[in-house]
């Protein structure tokens, strides 16, 4: 709470100020925004055309081969699911833990979550040999009387990712409703009035609405928290449930969850720094918030590093030749660059955050967050690709044929994600209005009484 008081000097102090500052972001877009949007659309077009070409010509246009059945697409899938994690973490877990730094960043993190899941969800379909039969993974009644195999980790993925998307989108939307109502009430153009009028669902800020809303919000947070843990655990079981040396590991669920938080927070930093600059949100998003996020990055980096070390230790300790070979191969084999790149980005570089000054050094944090994103992508690539290249039968060891189609689709994913983000920041409040207002002292005539009340009530209840 002291921090809150410290940063108060810069932070807006009245409800009106908060409202104005945030809704200012929704003002008609400038040239820069359109440039960004068209860049995203361009990337998306590259991705879409790459995918169509891949379907038209054959799945061989991607770089997979025998024995590497999974490659960039599943790497992208895990990467985006990982990104998606921090949003719900920040909005739900930190909400339950009453972390003081979450309010200005959580909306953006949540948006990132929803759009990242939307991106991630594409990849299991893109990576199918016959994507037009993707529906067969759903348990729907059909004349063939056939159901999917509930024992398959891929089906668990279907459940986990679809649930995660539904719940995080719902959570996100529910959080948005009062803010949209606020935007509706300040909207000037016809289009915006209509847009917000419809999307705010007729929200009126009445006392009964608030009562049920806050109760439900807490429950959402309670649902979302185990969901965060479960989704990436399930994703990690795609690997851990197999027998591939390098995949078959019990440490995977916590390791993946920690990695997901790590990459997600980094992605939040990557997104929020330019946003803060572009919309002059310095008063809302302060060094205090960056310091907190840096600490979170530092901690998860530690967990991830620990997981890496454990993997090696277990490979040695298990006395399993195949595991040992795999974990010798990763740092010293043909694809050592991917391993050491990952180690640098995820384990070594973030250690600089022990230096207090760097934790609030915005340019440094931006660069670091990019590196972490790359490092986490490499981590998934290492796990997926390196393990598959060296399995049990040396005669069937192989390599990868990296193709431009994969690059195109990967770029397209960023375009897709960026497109939604870009649209979102211009059309909906990307900083939570109500929650920021909540941490402010309410305007009261009787100061003493009011202030006492606020001190114990950063959140609800």
């Amino acid at each position, binding site marked *: 709470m002291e921090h809150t008081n410290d940063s108060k000097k810069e932070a807006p102090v009245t409800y009106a100020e908060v409202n104005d500052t945030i809704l200012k972001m929704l003002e008609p877009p400038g040239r820069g925004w359109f440039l960004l949007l068209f860049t995203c659309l361009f990337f998306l077009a590259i991705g879409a055309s790459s995918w169509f070409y891949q379907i038209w010509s054959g799945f061989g246009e991607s770089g997979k081969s025998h024995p590497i059945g999974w490659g960039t697409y599943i790497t992208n899938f895990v990467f985006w699911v990982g990104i998606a994690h921090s949003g719900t973490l920040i909005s739900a877990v930190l909400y339950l833990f009453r972390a003081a730094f979450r309010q200005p960043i959580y909306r953006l993190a949540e948006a990132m979550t929803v759009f990242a899941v939307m991106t991630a969800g594409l990849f299991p379909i893109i990576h199918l040999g016959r994507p*037009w*039969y993707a*529906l067969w993974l759903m348990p*729907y*009644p*059909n*004349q*063939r*009387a*056939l159901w999917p195999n509930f024992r398959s980790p891929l089906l668990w993925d279907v459940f986990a990712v679809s649930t995660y998307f539904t719940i995080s989108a719902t959570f996100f939307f529910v959080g948005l409703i009062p803010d949209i109502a606020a935007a509706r009430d300040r909207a000037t153009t016809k289009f915006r009035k209509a847009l917000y009028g419809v999307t705010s669902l007729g929200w009126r800020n009445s006392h009964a609405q608030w009562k049920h809303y806050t109760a439900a919000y807490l429950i959402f947070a309670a649902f979302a928290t185990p969901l965060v843990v479960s989704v990436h655990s399930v994703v990690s079981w795609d690997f851990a449930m197999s027998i591939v040396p390098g995949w078959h590991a019990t440490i995977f669920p916590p390791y993946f969850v920690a990695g997901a938080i790590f990459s997600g927070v980094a992605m939040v930093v990557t997104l929020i720094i330019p946003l803060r600059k572009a919309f002059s949100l310095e008063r809302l998003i302060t060094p205090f918030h960056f310091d907190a996020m840096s600490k979170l990055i530092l901690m998860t980096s530690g967990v991830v590093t620990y997981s890496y070390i454990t993997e090696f230790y277990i490979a040695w300790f298990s006395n399993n030749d195949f595991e040992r070979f795999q974990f010798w191969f990763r740092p010293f084999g043909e694809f050592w660059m991917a391993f050491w790149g990952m180690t640098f980005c995820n384990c070594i570089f973030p250690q600089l955050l022990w230096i207090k000054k760097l934790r609030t050094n915005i340019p440094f944090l931006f660069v670091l967050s990019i590196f972490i994103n790359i490092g986490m992508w490499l981590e998934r690539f290492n796990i997926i690709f390196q393990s598959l290249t060296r399995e049990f039968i040396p005669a069937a060891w192989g390599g990868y044929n990296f193709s431009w189609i994969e690059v195109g689709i990967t770029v397209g994913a960023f375009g897709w994600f960026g497109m939604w983000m870009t649209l979102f920041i211009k059309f909906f409040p990307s900083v939570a209005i109500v929650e920021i207002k909540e941490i402010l002292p309410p305007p009261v005539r009787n100061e003493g009484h009011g202030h006492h009340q606020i001190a114990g009530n950063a959140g609800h209840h």
Partner: protein
Amino acid sequence: MVTKIRLAIVGVSALALALAAVAVQQATAPAPANAQDSAAQYPLLGVRAGVYNDGQAALWDLNITDHFRYFGPPARLRGYSPEQPIHFSHVIHVQQNKMECQYCHWSVSKASYAAIPEEETCMGCHGALVQGKSERGKKDIQYLKDMYAKNQPIPWQKVHVMPDYLKFNHKRHVKAGVTCQECHGQIPEMEQVERVSSMKMGWCISCHRQRGASIDCLVCHGHR
């Protein structure tokens, strides 16, 4: 208000508990020793209640790809009745002249294929004896003779077009006592043969289940 909510809660809980009971009962029931036995257990919840008997997709069947595929090419649909190069009437041959199915389609009990008869078989009667009564009949028989003389096969249109990955064995079905009509309908009453069954997988499976035939995938999808 609150009572309504309570009622709803009780209702939903009751439904959930009922489901749970079924699930537990099913889970604890001994697993079938082999797939054939599972026919007795079926259907559990009437999950295919909306599927018509002949396996044509019900409206609530969400199988979109099937809808696209099977409502696309008419040759894959019930009711497909292509025009044949010869207006061969099963009414005349089977109904009126009492010919046995296997007189012409002799290979059904010998092989997986139910062959179209050789032209030689047709010529047995039409070579010298039967020359046709109607104008069209005469023309068709002349066409047959011409083709036979030229040693060329008649390009019949296939009525029951099946995908390549389905390997259907006529012999086994005929030997198991499945009559021709069960799948092909009342052919003797058809002037022009029509596909009367959807011949989709659900249609096959329902019969296999009813009769206790194997529902191992490889029975139909591995080989002929």
